[in-house]
């Protein structure tokens, strides 16, 4: 399942998890110890962050570690590039919908 990174970031606990993951890889247990919420709740937040592409997980079971996935944050240039591809394709489709001046 895909989650919009903007939705993933719209939660204060998830934003805090990301700041804790800056520069270090942490296990669910280590992350949970930093917050006054239950481990299952932290696991749910981590799942959302993974599905949004903002974090990656490595390893299995209790050795599961999470790191930030920088590719989840698009550079401005790329963001704008993608935007115009979509926008111009939609503009072209709309131009075909409307009756042409010759019609």
């Amino acid at each position, binding site marked *: 399942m895909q989650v919009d*990174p*903007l939705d993933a*970031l*719209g939660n204060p606990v998830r*934003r805090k998890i*990301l*700041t804790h993951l*800056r*520069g270090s890889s942490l296990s669910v247990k280590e992350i949970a110890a930093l917050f006054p919420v239950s481990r299952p709740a932290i696991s749910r937040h981590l799942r959302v962050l993974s599905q949004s592409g903002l974090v990656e997980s490595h390893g299995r079971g209790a050795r599961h570690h999470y790191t*930030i996935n*920088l590719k989840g*944050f*698009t*550079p*401005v*240039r790329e*963001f*704008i*590039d993608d*935007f*115009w*591809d*979509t*926008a*111009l*394709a*939609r*503009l*072209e*489709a*709309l*131009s*075909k919908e*409307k009756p*042409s*001046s010759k019609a």
Partner: protein
Amino acid sequence: MIQKSVLLRCSPIEAFHLFTTRISEWWPLTHRPSKDPHSELVLEASGRFHERAADGRDIDLGRVVEWDPPRRLMLDFYMGTSADQPTAVEILFVPEGEATRVTVYHRSKPESAHLWTRRVGVFENSWQSVLQSLVNW
């Protein structure tokens, strides 16, 4: 600089109107800061470029810098950066036979040049500081 173009089967003035007065119909739903798919986007020849959401929110997306139908439109663009660090969009409408080539040139400006290769923050200001710290380490 980013350069993109599309050939539309209509006259330059029709293409200009399609781009401006009918912007709500083509502006990608994924790039509406309000996240309201039925929001109305407005480009005012007098200067404002904004989004009006159904819930009453009115969000500035940029500013119209030059409105010169049917040839040229220039915008300051806030998405991906911010109102005090805009990027610049130039849209040219050039006839090609019976059709019109719409070309978009999107550039950074001196105030946004340092952001061009930076990772996109998000539109919401509250996230700015977190993202800033994430991208700067």
